């Protein structure tokens, strides 16, 4: 009963507008005080510090730093030009370029809002100018940006991996097939709408233009190959790969493209530090909540009560998916992961779901949550750029949300979709 009241108090504090990390911390402090009196506060201070010292999470600020360097060093613009030369000739090509570019970039800075603002402010006006409906432009930008969170490097996956003690490298590999499936499905959907509504091509295909764009973007294209190849090949850990990404992006930006502007870089770095701290404070606060949950054995009791209802994996996965979907609707991604992982992991182990598959499933639920109001900051940013109404854009967005949901169902019920590539590389 006390446990339920404490968790309820946490949701009440979130509902009234307290920052989520502070609400988690507040509820956890009440909990540890109820169990151990003021000594609980000393344990809480120890736990919050230890929670922020997780070595795998060092990858988060480093990937954010690399993203800042890529965005200010001219790498992003060259990749946009390359994707445009590659697929822009197809009907509705600009929408497909949007999907392709989002898959490369979204979530790289750690702030989904900043990334969608950066990509959307270039591509949404361009799409409107070419005759795409603003609702369609906002919907494509928003949903493809959300899909990108399962494509490495993925900050939600790093978070999940560190919290659940799951290999981050294997999570990255597991996200590739569902991510590409989703990306191609969204591009196919763009093509379908383009034919149906007679949407324009970006420009005629030109081998010379493609060659020039490829040459220009060569270093930018090699960058992910080197970094992800190093991580997947076991040469470096995810954290070290993130460190290499920083060096590579810095060298390319300074010596090859020579476009790094110190002022822009400084602001991007400060924003990156702030984003890191926002996520890490959530992680640290969740360590205090974890202290309380461990003492009360609440996750284990929840797992026992769900498995007492049914031990059917399909049914349990459906219950988990529904729960995560609703959590994703009302909480931001990082907060949703941090709150649900400690609660669900005992259940995941008990019914024999592979933690890697669960990680992809959880991240896809977060992607869906970013598209569903009331808390849908990615969608709202895209709508603001396109100057469209959120609800009407959501109606246009439904087929793209459908793609995300279809990939989620595939990942949930066909484990091979996420695990086959992991097995191929590592088993």
């Amino acid at each position, binding site marked *: 009963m006390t446990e339920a009241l404490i968790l309820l108090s946490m949701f009440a*504090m*979130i*509902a*009234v*507008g*307290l*920052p*989520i*990390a*502070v609400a988690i*911390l*507040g509820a956890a*402090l009440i909990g540890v005080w109820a169990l151990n009196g003021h000594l609980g*506060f*000393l344990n*809480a*201070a*120890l736990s*919050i*510090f230890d929670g*922020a*010292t*997780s*070595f795998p999470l*060092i990858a988060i*600020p480093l990937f954010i730093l690399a993203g800042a360097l890529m965005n200010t060093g001219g790498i992003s613009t060259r990749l946009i030009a390359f994707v445009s030369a590659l697929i822009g000739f197809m009907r509705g090509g600009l929408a497909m370029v949007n999907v392709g570019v989002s898959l490369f970039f979204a979530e790289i800075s750690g*702030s989904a*809002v*900043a990334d969608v*603002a*950066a990509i*959307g*402010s270039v591509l949404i006006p361009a799409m409107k100018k070419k005759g795409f409906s603003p609702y369609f432009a906002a919907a494509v930008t928003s949903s493809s940006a959300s899909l990108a969170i399962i494509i490495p490097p993925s900050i939600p996956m790093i978070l999940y991996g560190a919290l659940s003690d799951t290999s981050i490298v294997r999570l990255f590999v597991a996200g590739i097939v569902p991510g590409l499936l989703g990306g191609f499905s969204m591009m196919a959907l763009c093509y379908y709408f383009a034919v149906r509504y007679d949407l324009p091509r970006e420009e005629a295909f030109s081998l010379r233009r493609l060659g020039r764009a490829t040459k220009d973007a060569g270093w930018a294209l090699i960058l992910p190959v080197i970094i992800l190849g190093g991580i997947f090949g076991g040469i*470096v850990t995810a954290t*070290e790969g*993130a*460190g*290499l990404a*920083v060096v590579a992006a810095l060298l390319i930006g300074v010596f090859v493209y020579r476009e790094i*502007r110190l002022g*822009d870089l400084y602001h991007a*770095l*400060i924003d990156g*530090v*702030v*984003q*890191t*701290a*926002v996520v*890490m*404070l959530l992680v*640290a606060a969740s360590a205090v909540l974890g202290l309380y949950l461990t003492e009360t054995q609440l996750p284990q009791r929840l797992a026992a009560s769900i498995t007492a209802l049914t031990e059917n994996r399909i049914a349990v996965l459906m219950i988990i998916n529904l729960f995560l979907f609703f959590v994703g609707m*009302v909480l*931001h991604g990082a*907060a949703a992961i941090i709150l649900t992982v400690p609660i669900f992991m005992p259940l995941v182990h008990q019914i024999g779901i592979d933690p890697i598959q669960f990680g992809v499933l959880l991240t896809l639920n977060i992607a869906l949550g970013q598209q569903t109001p009331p*808390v849908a*900051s990615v969608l*709202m*940013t895209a709508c*603001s750029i396109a100057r469209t109404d959120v609800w009407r854009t959501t109606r246009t967005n439904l087929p793209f949300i459908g793609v995300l949901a279809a990939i989620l169902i595939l990942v949930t019920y066909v484990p091979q979709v996420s695990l086959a590539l992991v097995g191929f590389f590592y088993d």
Partner: protein
Amino acid sequence: MSVLARGLDLLLQAVTLTLLIALAVVVLMGVAFRYSGNSLIWYDEVASVLLAWITFTGAGLATLRDAHLGFNGLLFGLPRRGRIALFVLVEAIFAAVFVVIGWGGWAILGVFAGDTLISVPWVTRSFVQGVLPVSAAVIVLARLTTLPRRYADVLAGYDPERREIDDEIARATAPREPQP
């Protein structure tokens, strides 16, 4: 931004950016030394401590910039009086949480006595964990310095999420200075 808030913002920018660069350097040194066959024994521990310092000092900067994730739908959906009442409640809880964390963080420093880091024995744990009470105080101070602006927003019904979206779009669409 008030003079105090601006000064605090600049100070925290300097501290967090230094820590971030130090973290990147430490990680890269760790990789380089490992491949040269001379692994650094202090690499993991120091990098983890740097991450914790970035977390807590950065949390102060995030507080100053209203960047912590939250849900304001209910608060901004209320009439003016309700918004003011909830605002007061939220501020009181916020301050109480960090006063408790600050007190707990301060109290455990005495418990560590002469404990040091394992791989860097000349650095004491009380120095390393001292960042917690200091940051808790900075977070409370940061929250207080932004209180007048946030209160004005609450009176006007201007949701901070709306402000973030507006700021990011303004920044992304701002014309860039030509490269010299």
